């Protein structure tokens, strides 16, 4: 009962955020310097053509009317036409989306076990050399530009050694795994250090908690206390951080997709920006934001399910 009302409350809170998101993506198009119609039609367009397109796009109507029809269209899944591909933006997004999702899942499968392993080793050896070593690794991981590493990896492991394909997505699950291995590893190399730093801090904070001292006083073995209490209590803060990081990951996938020529949403985004395909930019921005909100919501609900205290 309590958890249902919590979910209801969270859903209600999301409504204004969704309205805000729609406003931002609507006004994004308004930020185009100059006249978007002339931009699309080119400088030599006749006055009639400009007026016709202005009417077709509804730009002759007041702003609020334009916004309302934008909302109406969006709710029915109409995100406009791509100026370059001449197909609906939604179709384009659905076509590119699975590759990015696959990549993000792949990264998590690689980065999460590595993170947990490194953070546990570091926390259990706080201040000693394994902790220092992991700290150095994680600082280095944060400073190395992913695209630079990607370029070097693609040429060395891909072209020189020929171990991995350096572009595309492949056919079938095994081929996907093979094609996306280098992109996923390059991304994990900056994600895992960030997560490790935070999980390590959470673990050490728990180590100093009163209940740990109480468990020790009862004579429980250290390993048991660590597994049963400390690790469990560190899951929640890390889970919340993971929600934030997934949003970051979605953004970070853009660069990796370009380096390894993976035809995903990020590559589509950059292509649209370079080709001034405004409705695709607008639609993608909206889709990315809704995905982020959905992930945050899912993690909140999951957190509340694990730990009922957070829903109070």
């Amino acid at each position, binding site marked *: 009962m309590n958890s249902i009302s919590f979910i209801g409350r969270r859903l209600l809170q999301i409504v204004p*955020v969704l309205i805000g998101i729609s406003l931002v993506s609507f006004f*994004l198009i308004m930020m185009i310097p100059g006249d978007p119609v002339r931009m699309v039609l080119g400088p030599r367009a006749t006055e009639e053509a400009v007026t016709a397109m202005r009417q077709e796009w509804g730009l002759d109507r007041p702003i609020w009317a334009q916004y309302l029809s934008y909302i109406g269209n969006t709710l029915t899944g109409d995100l406009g036409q791509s100026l370059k591909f001449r197909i609906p933006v939604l179709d384009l997004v659905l076509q590119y989306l699975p590759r990015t999702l696959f990549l993000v899942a792949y990264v998590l499968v690689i980065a999460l076990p590595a993170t947990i392993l490194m953070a546990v080793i570091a926390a259990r050896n706080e201040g000693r050399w394994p902790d220092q070593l992991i700290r150095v690794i994680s*600082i280095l991981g944060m*400073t190395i530009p992913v695209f630079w590493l990607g370029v070097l990896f693609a040429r060395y492991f891909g072209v020189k050694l020929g171990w991995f394909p350096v572009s595309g997505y492949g056919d079938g699950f095994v081929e996907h795994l093979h094609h996306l291995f280098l992109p996923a590893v390059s991304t994990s190399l900056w994600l895992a250090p960030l997560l490790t730093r935070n999980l390590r801090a959470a673990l050490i904070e728990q180590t100093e908690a009163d209940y740990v001292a109480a468990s020790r006083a009862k004579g429980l073995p250290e390993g048991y206390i660590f597994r049963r209490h400390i690790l469990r209590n560190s899951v929640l803060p890390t889970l919340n951080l993971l929600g934030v990081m997934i949003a970051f990951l979605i953004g970070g996938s853009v*660069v990796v997709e370009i380096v390894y020529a993976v035809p995903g949403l990020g590559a589509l985004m950059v292509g649209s*920006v370079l080709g001034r395909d405004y409705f695709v930019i607008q639609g993608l921005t909206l889709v990315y934001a809704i995905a982020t909100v959905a992930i945050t919501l899912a993690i909140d609900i999951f957190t509340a399910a694990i730990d009922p205290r957070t829903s109070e």
Partner: protein
Amino acid sequence: MTDLASTASVHPAAPRFRHGTIEAALGAALLLAWLIAAVGAGVFAPYDPNALDLVAMLAPPDGVHWFGTDHLGRDVFSRVIYGARIDIWMGFAGVIAPLVVGVTVGLIAGYFGGLTDTILMRILDITVAFPFFILVIAIVGVLGPGLVNYIIALALVAWVAYARLVRAEVLVVKRLEYVQAARALGFSDFVIILRHVLPNVLGSITIYAWTDAVMVILAGASLGFLGLGAQPPTAEWGVMIADGQPYVLQAWWICLFPGIAMVTLSLGFILVSDGLSRRLRVSS
């Protein structure tokens, strides 16, 4: 830029050895070295960063060209040195712009509270609903590629972290007795914020700003690499790596050196930030 230098030189000279001092000093030394390189690029760089030498295309590193030359025969060493100007400027402007916006929003929201606070925090919620890099690309995409538009995009997107930090601190500070006293004495809100609240929140935002600089530089270089940031032939490190990408098998040096430059500059910022926050944690 002078600001970077002065902040950097303050911390190594701490009176007593404390946790994080060595880190902060090492970071400051790295930053100082890059700053000197950037300011004195005209002196240190042996060649014009954009001078073409079509006879010496893709020449490997040697005594004449320390870091080799690129596909147009430009000296990679000179371009890396001149690139420091662009990337440090980018880090500086890219931190200051969102910092000013965020601090202002945070001060106003935290100090006045009520409806003002609610509205500003709703705007914040909406901004964080977008993945950071995506919104930056979208704004740059709409305004047009380029460094200045990148800074504008950062001012619109990256202010949220500063606003949150500052607002949280202001909520604490405004209950302190001397702030209450200043209010009772009839000082205007503006004076109270500027003279009494702002100095109290500067510490925590400074530490964050050092880490933020790393993100700003990495994201900016990524944009340069994607063709959305600094535009060729500008000697910006991300642009240089993109230039070298097609030749990386036969001429690895074009890509390698700008990347090492980025790692060492970012390392400087992270070490200073880490060192400072460790020292604060130990001393508090």
